[in-house]
């Protein structure tokens, strides 16, 4: 039994090109074409094809949104994304929304054919230059890492924090760093706020925790 396919792309030229390409494969059967997101969703719901080849940028309903809805309403349909965008962000988002394959527009014809075949078999396919490694790295990066507000202090603010923790007065610090007292006060207020510190005691605790001053015996 041939693989049933729906093509969704808003550009007639691209659509015709793909249709010609895919129809030349013996075991592919194009059962429908759609020119916008809403039409795609309706068509897929009705025909429940094996594979949907979906353009990521379409009028009406964005490709990513159409992808999410199709994946929800016709979970057996495998989806191959066809896109102008090669950034990992798009690929990762598409995979997260339920895509099985991701093919760049303008890459070789074989890629698309292969992506559809792999998708029909239930395997993931990413066309070069998109790679699994890049996607995984992207997903890793997009996760919130350990974030320490202390790292956001500027070198000057660190100097001020160090001296405040050592018990120096604003006047001392101003003289030491060769800046005005007003500037010291500003730095001090900013760094307290940034570190979420309320008073001198909390500042000392913070300084000890970060090894700026030795803990009291």
């Amino acid at each position, binding site marked *: 039994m041939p693989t049933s396919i729906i093509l969704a792309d808003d550009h007639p030229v691209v659509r015709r090109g793909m249709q010609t390409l895919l129809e030349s494969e013996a075991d592919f059967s194009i059962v429908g074409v759609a020119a916008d997101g809403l039409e795609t969703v309706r068509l897929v719901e009705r025909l429940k094809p094996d594979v949907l080849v979906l353009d990521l*940028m379409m009028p009406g309903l*964005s490709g*990513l949104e159409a992808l999410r809805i199709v994946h929800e309403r016709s979970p057996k349909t495998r989806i191959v994304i066809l896109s*102008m*965008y*090669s*950034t*990992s*962000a*798009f690929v*990762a*988002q598409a995979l997260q929304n339920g895509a099985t394959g991701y093919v760049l*527009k*303008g890459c070789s014809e074989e890629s698309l054919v292969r992506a559809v075949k792999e998708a029909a078999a239930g395997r993931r396919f990413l066309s070069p230059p998109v790679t699994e490694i*890049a996607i995984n790295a*992207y997903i890793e*990066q*997009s996760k*919130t*890492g350990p*974030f320490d*507000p202390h*790292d*956001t202090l*500027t*070198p*000057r603010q660190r100097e001020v924090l160090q001296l405040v923790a050592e018990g120096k007065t604003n006047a001392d610090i101003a003289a030491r760093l060769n800046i005005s007292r007003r500037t010291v006060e500003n730095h001090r207020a900013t760094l307290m706020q*940034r570190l979420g510190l309320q008073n001198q005691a909390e500042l000392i605790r913070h300084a000890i925790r970060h090894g700026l001053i030795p803990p009291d015996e």
Partner: protein
Amino acid sequence: MRGIDDRRSLSNGPRLPAAAPRGFRHAAKQFLLGVAGVALITFAVVLFPSERFPTPGIGPGTISLLYLIVIVLVSHRGGFVASAAVSLIAAFSLNYFVQPLVPSLRVRNPLDLVATLAFLTTAWVITGIVARLRERNALLDGLFEQAPQANALMDLDTRLFRVNREFTRIFGYTPQEALGRRLIDLIVPGEMRHRIQSYTERLAQGQRLEEEVVRQRKDGSRLHVLMVGAPVTMPGGATAVYAMYRDITQRKAAEAALEALSVRLMEVQETERKHLARELHDEIGQVLTGLRLLLGPSEDATAEVLTSRLERARPIVDDLLGRIRRLSFDLRPADLDELGLLPALLALFERYTAQTGVLVDFKHQGVAGRFAPPLETAVYRVIQEALTNTARHAGVAAVTVRLWTDAGKLHLQVEDRGCGFDPEVTLKAPRCSGLMGMRERIWLLGGSLSIESSPGAGTTITAELPAAETTVA
């Protein structure tokens, strides 16, 4: 002198001064002066030989009139208590010293009731009138003196006879320095003096002036003021000029800044268009021309030649696609609109590292959702600009970007350990549109941006913006 001082100190209070309640010492002094006056008149009369009475012109009536003058003076200056006391003494003196000298007078009543009442009534009425006048004067003085704009009264020759505190504050001239001198010589810059003539003419015809003009301070510095002038009739009928000035230098500066901003925006837009036009024409246009030549007339070409031409055309098309993809990304990354700030930034860093070789160490917290589009754009562009500067000037292999939310604010920080610069010097350079542009973007969204850098010590750019997350991705 003291009276004026009192009034001035009182007018500092929240209420306008009522009839100035002067001190006990002042009233006592006026009382004593009044008593001295009464005593002097009485003494003069008593000194006269008694047979001279009744001399035409000087009799008890005249003396009562003289007493009344003293009482009026005390009422005017010393208040009711002092003048009432002087009235009683005057009545007493009339009874005991003056009347005995005039045997023909029929009324001989110790403490003549009529005289006493007349004197007391006079004292009361005069004190009341004086108090009310003083109240009105104090109100008018207060309005003039405390007005939020500079006030000046002058004659038609612009000679000043009154200025207020705000006038001193704005123009630097104290009343002592200003009064009696011509306004035109004090605050009108030399090259604008010829216009004053027409002002004066219009004012003399009863017209009002309202104009934004440039004036100068005592120290010679210039300022923009809104000037309003109107002719007023002074007590006595002379025409004077009442002029008001409001310092609008700040507003003018803001207007100028806005103007400069829109000029720069237009410049930037034109530069972008020029870049785009060049890219389309010189790059893409050229490649397409080559492609057209390659795919040109082929009636007599063999199948082999055609195939080889197509083979050669393919990489050219791929190249074109790449160029257009890059151009589109440069103009406006689709990631930013479709996916949001975090994915767009990750895509930017990926591309940045590929192009420049500079690694981006990215730390973020609480920024996975969507924010208002102007905010996402501003943060994206500021980070992009900062990264471009780092690659171009810092000479480092890695840069740290931090993006975090905290108490309704979005913070961004781009930090490198590169060669740094002196922000004071760089920001003043005329061609420093990048840093200025960053500032303006952040500033327009109600945020602030600080640049910490010094030669040899790296650069840290930190910005914070008020931010509400719109949806959570």
